[in-house]
C-alpha cells in the first residue's frame, strides 16, 4: 500500500492507484478534462498535471501511478500556470461558440437561442422566464429595440437572402403571449433583506434595476419628476411605435413585485441626493440623458462610473442608463439596470462589488464563404416570415416557422462542458494564442447526435467506448499530430459509426463535440 503526500498531506492508497485517486481520497480536487473514471487515462489534455518530488517537468495525475514516498504538489504556481496554459492551448484550437453570437451581441445578454428552442418546443412559460431573466421590459423592447442581436445572427451571414432570424419579433411574441395570459409571469422574490434602494428615474434603466433588486429581496422606491413611470418610453417614443397600454402592463408587473413609485419628485433642492443617501441604503441614478450631475463627478459621456460595477465616486451611489452614456439604446439601459442591480446587491450584502459575473465564452467569429453550408445545416430552408400587417406581431404559427430558421449556434453543452468549466475557474483566456482557425464542420446525419470535430480535444474516450461496444465502424483517430481528428472510418456517417453507443459517447465527451441534437 503506497503512502504518499499530496500538498503535504499524507495518504495511503491501494496498489495501482494513481496520483489523482490519492488526491481525491484526500478531497483535493485536481481538475481533469479528458479523464473519466472507468476508462483508460488518455493523459492527453494535461490539465491535471502535478509536480512530483520537485522535478522540473510536470506529470498528469490521472495516469501516474502513486508510489510510496512520493511528494506531490497540486497547487503550486508552476502547476497553476501549466493548467491555464493547457486550457488556453485547447481553446486556441476550439472551433465553437459557447454562446450564440446573438446572445453575445445582445447588450442585455439574453439567451436568445434558448428562448427560440423553448418557443419551438411550445414551452412559452419557460421562454418568458428566459427572456425576463435578462430583459425586464420585453414587450416594450419587442417593439422599439434596434435589435443588435439580429445583426449578430449567423443566419444572416449564411442565408441566401441574408436574412437574420426575427429574434426581436419572437421575443415580442413571447412577451405578448405572457402579458395577455390570465396570470402573466412574475418571478419569485427572495426573502426580504431589510435594505432599501432609491432609484432616481423611472425610465427603462430604473425600472429594470427595480425589477431585479426586488427579486433579491431589496425594497425599491423609484423617484421621477413626471407623474407616470416609463421615462422616455412614456414621454419620448411615439405612441404608434409603442402603444402605452403595453408599457403600462409591463410596468404594472414591476409594481406588482413591490416597487414604490414616487412621481413628480425632482431630486434637487427639495430632496437632494444627500437626503436620499441618508434615508436609503443605496442610490441608483438613472435619470436619463438630461440628468443633473447632482454633485457626482462627470465624464464626457455623462455621470462617471466604474464600467464594471456602475459605482460613482460617491460610496453607495450607482448610476446607469442614458445618464452615463452617449450612445442611447433602450436595451442598453435595461441591461444597465440589471447589471447595476447585481452590483448594488453585492454592495448591500457586504460582498466585494465586482458587477455581474462574467461568463466564459469562446467564439468562432466570421463565417467564411466555404463554411456557409456547414453552418446552415441545423436550420430550415424557410425564408424569413413576413408580417401580414406592419405593427402586428407573430401568430403562433408564424413564430414556430420563424424559429425553425435558427441555426443553433450556441453549444449544446454550455452547462456541462468541462473545458468551459475549467477555463472559467482558471481564468483562461480564449484568445491568448492566435492561430489560423480550422473550418467549421458539423456532422448531422445521426438522428440524435451531432458531432462537431472543431470542439474535439482528442481525448479518445469515444474511441474507447465504440471499440468496447463492438461497433462495426465506430470511431477512430484519423491523421496525426495537430491534424488528428476523430472520425468514422472509411468516410462512413456518424449514424453508421454510432449504432449502439451514441448515448454513452455523448455522456463521456468532455466538451460539446458529441452532443444530443435536441
Amino acid at each position, binding site marked *: 500500500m503506497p503512502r504518499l503526500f499530496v500538498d503535504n498531506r499524507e495518504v495511503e492508497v491501494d496498489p495501482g492507484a494513481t496520483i489523482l485517486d490519492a488526491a481525491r481520497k484526500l478531497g483535493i480536487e485536481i481538475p481533469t478534462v479528458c479523464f473519466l473514471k472507468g476508462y483508460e487515462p488518455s493523459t*492527453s489534455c494535461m490539465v491535471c498535471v502535478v509536480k512530483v518530488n520537485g522535478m522540473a*517537468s510536470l506529470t498528469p495525475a490521472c495516469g501516474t501511478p502513486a508510489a510510496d514516498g512520493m511528494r506531490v504538489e497540486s497547487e503550486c504556481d508552476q502547476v497553476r*500556470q501549466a493548467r491555464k496554459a493547457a486550457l488556453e492551448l485547447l481553446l486556441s484550437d476550439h472551433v465553437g461558440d459557447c454562446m450564440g453570437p446573438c446572445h453575445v451581441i445582445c447588450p442585455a445578454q439574453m439567451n436568445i437561442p434558448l428562448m427560440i428552442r423553448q418557443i419551438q418546443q411550445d414551452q412559452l412559460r419557460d421562454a418568458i422566464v428566459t427572456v425576463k431573466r435578462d430583459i425586464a421590459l420585453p414587450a416594450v423592447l419587442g417593439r422599439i429595440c434596434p435589435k443588435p442581436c439580429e445583426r449578430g445572427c449567423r443566419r444572416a451571414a449564411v442565408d441566401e437572402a441574408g436574412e437574420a432570424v426575427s429574434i426581436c419579433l419572437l421575443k415580442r411574441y413571447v412577451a405578448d403571449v405572457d402579458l395577455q395570459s390570465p396570470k402573466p409571469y412574475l418571478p419569485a422574490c427572495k426573502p426580504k433583506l431589510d435594505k432599501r434602494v432609491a432609484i432616481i428615474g423611472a425610465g427603462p434603466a430604473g425600472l429594470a434595476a427595480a425589477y431585479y433588486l426586488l427579486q433579491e429581496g431589496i425594497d425599491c422606491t423609484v423617484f421621477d419628476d413626471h407623474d407616470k413611470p416609463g421615462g422616455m418610453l412614456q414621454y419620448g417614443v411615439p405612441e404608434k411605435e409603442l402603444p402605452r397600454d403595453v408599457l403600462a402592463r409591463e410596468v404594472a408587473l414591476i409594481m406588482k413585485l413591490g416597487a414604490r413609485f414616487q412621481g413628480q419628485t425632482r431630486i434637487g433642492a427639495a430632496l437632494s441626493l444627500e437626503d436620499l443617501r441618508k434615508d436609503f441604503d443605496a442610490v441608483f441614478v438613472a435619470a436619463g440623458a438630461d440628468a443633473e450631475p447632482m454633485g457626482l463627478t462627470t465624464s464626457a459621456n455623462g455621470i462617471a462610473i466604474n464600467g464594471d460595477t456602475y459605482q460613482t465616486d460617491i460610496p453607495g451611489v450607482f448610476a446607469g442608463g442614458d445618464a452615463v452614456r452617449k450612445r442611447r439604446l433602450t436595451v442598453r439601459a435595461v441591461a444597465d439596470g440589471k447589471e447595476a442591480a447585481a452590483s448594488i446587491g453585492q454592495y448591500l450584502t457586504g460582498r466585494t462589488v465586482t458587477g455581474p459575473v462574467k461568463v466564459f465564452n469562446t467564439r468562432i467569429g466570421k463565417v467564411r464563404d466555404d463554411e456557409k453550408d456547414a453552418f446552415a445545416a441545423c436550420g430550415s430552408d424557410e425564408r424569413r416570415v413576413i408580417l401580414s400587417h406592419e405593427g402586428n406581431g407573430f401568430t403562433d404559427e408564424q413564430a414556430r416557422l420563424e424559429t425553425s430558421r435558427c441555426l443553433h449556434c450556441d453549444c449544446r453543452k454550455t452547462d456541462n462542458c468541462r473545458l468551459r468549466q475549467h477555463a472559467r475557474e482558471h481564468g483562461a483566456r480564449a484568445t491568448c494564442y492566435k492561430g489560423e482557425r480550422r473550418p467549421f464542420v458539423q456532422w448531422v446525419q445521426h438522428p440524435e447526435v451531432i458531432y462537431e470535430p472543431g470542439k474535439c480535444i482528442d481525448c479518445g474516450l469515444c474511441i474507447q467506448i*465504440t471499440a468496447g461496444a463492438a461497433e462495426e465502424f*465506430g470511431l477512430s*483517430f484519423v491523421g*496525426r*499530430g495537430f491534424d*488528428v481528428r476523430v472520425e468514422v472510418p472509411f468516410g462512413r456517417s456518424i449514424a453508421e459509426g454510432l449504432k449502439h453507443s451514441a448515448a454513452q459517447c455523448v455522456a463521456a465527451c468532455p466538451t460539446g463535440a458529441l452532443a444530443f441534437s435536441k
Partner: protein
Amino acid sequence: MDELDLTFVDRVVERLGTAAENVLEILQAVQGHFGYLPQQALERVCRIAQITPAAIVGVSTFYDQFRHHPVGRHVIHVCVGTACHVKGADRVYEAFQRRLGIAKGDDTDANKMFTIEKIACLGCCTLAPAVQIDDVTYGHLSPDGVSTVIDDFLRYERSRAGRGRKTSGPRIESSDHRGEIRLGLGSCCVARGSGKLRDALEKALGDTGVKINVKRVGCVGMCHQTPLVEVVMPDNKSFLYAKVLPQDAKAIVMRHFKVDGTTRRISNSLSQVLDRILTDEEPAPVTRYSINVRDKPVADFLGRQKHIATEHHGVIDPVDIDEYLSHDGFKALEKCIREMSAEDVIAEVERSGLRGRGGAGYPTHRKWSAVRSRQADEKFLVCNGDEGDPGAFMDRMLMESYPYRIIEGMTIAAYTVGAGQGYFYIRGEYPLATERISQAMENAAERGFLGDDILGSGFSLHLKIVPGAGAFVCGEETALIASIEGRRGMPRLRPPYPAENGLWGRPTLINNVETYAAVPWIIRNGAEAFASLGTSTSKGTKVFALAGKVDRVGLIEVPMGISVRQIVEDVGGGIAGGLRLKAVQVGGPSGGCVPAELAHLPVDYETLQSIGTMMGSGGMVALDETDCMVDIARYFLEFTQNQSCGKCTFCRIGTRRMLDILERLCAGQGGKADIQELEDLARMVQATSLCGLGKTAPNPVLSTIKYFRDEYEAHVAKRCPAGKCKALITYSITDDCIGCTLCAQHCPVDAIAMKPYQKHEIDAEKCIRCGTCKQVCPAEAVKVQ
C-alpha cells in the same frame, strides 16, 4: 471507382497472417502493389483479418509512408533535411511546383506524371539540396536547374524503357540476382562533376554484354569521397569504389563480371578498351577498393576519428559473414556465452560506461539489469533503427555496413537479459539496410549465431524485422512498442518503463542501433579500453552525421570529449567558402545550437545539456554567417510539429502555436511581445509534454533565443540579418551589372526585363526571391538586402 482486383489482398493477408499486429506489414504490401491504399483494399483486409476498420484507418493515417490517393507515375522526393534546408531546399521545392504547374496544396501535376513530396532526409547531405525521382537521385540542385533535372529524368526513363527495363512499380525492389552495380548515393556521380560515370557504366555494360542493372542507392559513408560505386555480385558480395571516374567504368565491370565472349566480339570489335583488357592490363580502380587513407584530406578526416561502432570501415563487406568472422566477428558473443555469466556481462557494460546512443544517454547496464531482474514467462528485445532526424543517417550506415555487429550486440544483450524473441525496427525509408540486416540474419542463423540453441548453449534468440512506416515519434520507445504491436505509434506515459511493461506487457529491452554496435567491441577489448576514451561521464565514441557548411561532410565516429571546434575544423576541414562558423546545430530537432564562442566545449552528454542542446542521435550541422538562426529554429520546429503524434495538448497544439509565432517572425509579421511569448510557451511545452519528442522540441528554439536573441529582435524589426527569410529581403542589381542578360534569361517569373549591355532591374512585385539571378550573375551584381 473501378472494381479493383483484390485477390492480391487475400494473398497478402494469407501470407502475413490475420493477427492485428501484422497491420503495418499488410498495409506496406498493399501499397507496394497498388501504389497507394485503395479503400476497397482496406475494407477487404478488415473482412478477412482480425483488424477493425477503426484500427486500420487509425494506423494507415498515422504513418507518413501511406498514401490514400493514387500518385503520379513518378514521385519526386525533395529532401528537406537540415543540410538541404540550409542550402535552399524550399526554393527547389517551389521551383518544381512552378515547373510542373502544381498548385499550392496539391501534390500531383495535371497529367498525373509527377507527384512531389517533401521527405525528411534522403541521407545524402553532401548533395544538398538533393531530390530523388523514383530511384534516381539528383544533387546540388538550384531552382533554375529543375527543368534540366526533369528533362534528364525523362530521357533516362525513355532509355531505360528502350532497354526493356522496368519503368515503374514498387520502388523497393529486391536486388537483381544477376548482381548489380550500385552508384553510391545514386547520383553522387552526377552531382560531383562526373555525370558521365553513369553513362560510362551503362556503355561499359553494353559494350561488354554484361546484363546487369546500374542501380542508384543510398549512402554508405565517406560522403566527400563520392562518387562511390558499389558492385554487388550475384551472391550478394559487394565491392565499394570511391572517387570513380568515367574511364574506370569498364575496368570495374571487367573485374567483377564474366564477359560473354560472343557478345564481346560482335559488339566491341572496334573497342580499344577491349584490347586493353585483353592484354590483361590491371584495371586501375581496383586499388581504390579500400579507400586510400594516405590522401591528405582523408587522413585529416580520419585522424581524429576512432572506429568502434564503425570498426573496419571501408574494408569490410557488409554481408559476407566469413569476412566478419575473419575480423573477430562473433568472438564477443562466444566469449559471453562460454566464459561469462549474465552478471559478468552487465558488470562489464557498466564498467565501460556505455550510455544509450539514441539520444537521452541512459546508462545501458541499468536498462539491461532492469530487464534481467524481471521475472516473466517471456521477455523481448528491440533494436531501435527508426532513425528519423533530418540530417542524421548514422544508424542507416551502421545497419547497411555492419549488420553482423549489431546482430552480435543484440544477441549478447538478449543472452544477458534472457530475451528469446527480438525485433529489429528499421525505418521504412531504408530498404538497403533492411535488405542487408535480413540477409545477415539469415547467414548468422545458418552459422548458429542466431536461432535455436546458439553455439550449443541452449540459449535461443529469434529476430524479426519490422519495417517502420515513417513516424519520427516511433523513435520514442513506448511509441515504438505500439508500432510493433500494430497500433498507431503513440507514446504513453512512463512509468511503467518497457523494462517492466513493454511489448505485449512483457519486460522489454530497447536499445539503439549504435548502442548494440558498440557492445561486441567492449566485450572483446575490455570495458577499460572503452572507458579510457571520452570524459568522466561520457565514455567511448559517438557517431555523427557531419553536414552543413563544412568542407568535408560525412559520417564520422569520434571519441567523446572531442570539442565541437575540432570536429568542424579538423574532421570537417573548416567552413567552406571562406565564411565564418556561426554555430553548430547538434542533436537535430531535439537538440540545440552550440554557438561559435562555445565551440571549444567538449562533446559529452552533460556539457551539451548544460548549454541547452543534447547529444541526440547524432546529427551535426555546421552553420555559417549566411544562416538565419530564427529560420533554423523555425525549420526544426516545423519538423517536430509535423511529427507530433498529437496525443498531449502541449505537443499537439503548443508546438503549433510556437511555430505560428516563428512563422510570423520569419514573415516579418512578428510583434514585440512575440519573443517573450515564444520563450514562455517553449518552456511550458518543455516541462509539460508527455514524451521526449515534446519535451525536447523547444530546444532548438530556446537555444537560438539564448544565443542569438539579437536576430530574433531584428526579425521583429522586420530585418533578417542573414538575408534568408524571403519576406524580409529584396533582391536588387548593383552598378556592377555588365548587361549580360543572364539573370533575365533565367528568372522564372520574368521579374527582370532583358536589357542587353544595360544595367538590369528587378521588379520587386514579381520577384519570388528564388535566388536564381544571384546564382547566375557572373559579375556578382545581385545584392540581397
